[in-house]
């Protein structure tokens, strides 16, 4: 288990993050790739923005650990004019 700041609501061993506006909880140590896998999303078909920074390098997603209070936007292309 990692040392560090502990948010009151956080259960030990979990990270609490916001994804597309909603709270999600994942095991501590989870990466962005784990997050996408838990949402059954193919990294090749979505774009991930973490704390307003776009994660351009898809190959790095498995190395980026989630941190409590991270805010993610996961977007894709939909029909539009």
């Amino acid at each position, binding site marked *: 288990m990692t040392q560090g700041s502990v948010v009151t609501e956080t259960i030990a061993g979990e990270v609490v993050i916001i*994804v*597309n*506006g*909603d709270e999600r909880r994942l095991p501590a140590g989870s990466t962005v790739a784990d997050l996408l896998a838990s*949402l059954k*999303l193919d990294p090749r*078909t*979505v*774009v991930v*923005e973490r704390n*307003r920074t*776009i994660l*351009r390098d898809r190959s790095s997603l498995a190395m980026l650990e989630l941190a409590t209070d991270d805010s993610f*936007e*996961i*977007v*894709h*292309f*939909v*029909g*539009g*004019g």
Partner: protein
Amino acid sequence: MAHADLISPVTITDPQPLVIAGREFRSRLMVGTGKYASNAQMVEAIEASGAEVVTVAVRRVDLDRAKDEGILHHLDPEHFFLLANTAGCYSAGDAVRYARLSRAAGFNEWVKLEVIGDQETLLPDTQGLLEATETLVSEGFKVLAYTNEDLVTALKLEDAGAAAVMPLASPIGSGLGMLNPYAIRIIKQRLTVPVIVDAGVGTASDACIVMEQGVDGILMNTGIAAAKDPVRMAAAMKAAVEAGRNAYLAGRMPRREIAVPSSPTMGMLGS
């Protein structure tokens, strides 16, 4: 058949294909992908339109997705040129953020830039549009800027480095057709970059009249998607864009306020 050569159709090709930012496109009709009853119908309509450029929007993935699975499951990016829009953005900052996200999808660095200024009319915020254009051009984007039919704004967008300027025929989704042909013509005459009329085309005759003004192309969505039979309307729009382009290139006859007979006035029978 003895005279097959006389009745076979003559192939008339466009002498100048549409070129934007150095890229040549096979059709002057660009289409949106919104508002279709089904993805299957959308694909069929796009095929019938002959369009190469298709616009898409960037939105949050629905994480509880019941059906939403993203448009790339239905459109082959090898076959179509995906042009992401910034529809729904009401500030330059938002539009830039959406444009960056769309570029990160990895298809191209093009964006149909919309910065909307009013919810009821969806008319552009031209100040925000110019600001976002400058930012995105400096980041290497090819910006196709959706704007109103104002010449001065169009000139400023060109100066700011827009790859194409996209004046509206009438408000988005209105189907009112071209309200100000004079403004559209003057924009086309004064700009060097391509002028693509975007929004307001309601039916095939609207598309034809727009192309007769000499503009380089048309982008439409609702005019096809909201037709009772979108696939047939897509085919009609394809024909109308080609007809309007050919009519413009052919050069129309002058208008006259009095009749001029088409048949000889000589050689009539004696009374």
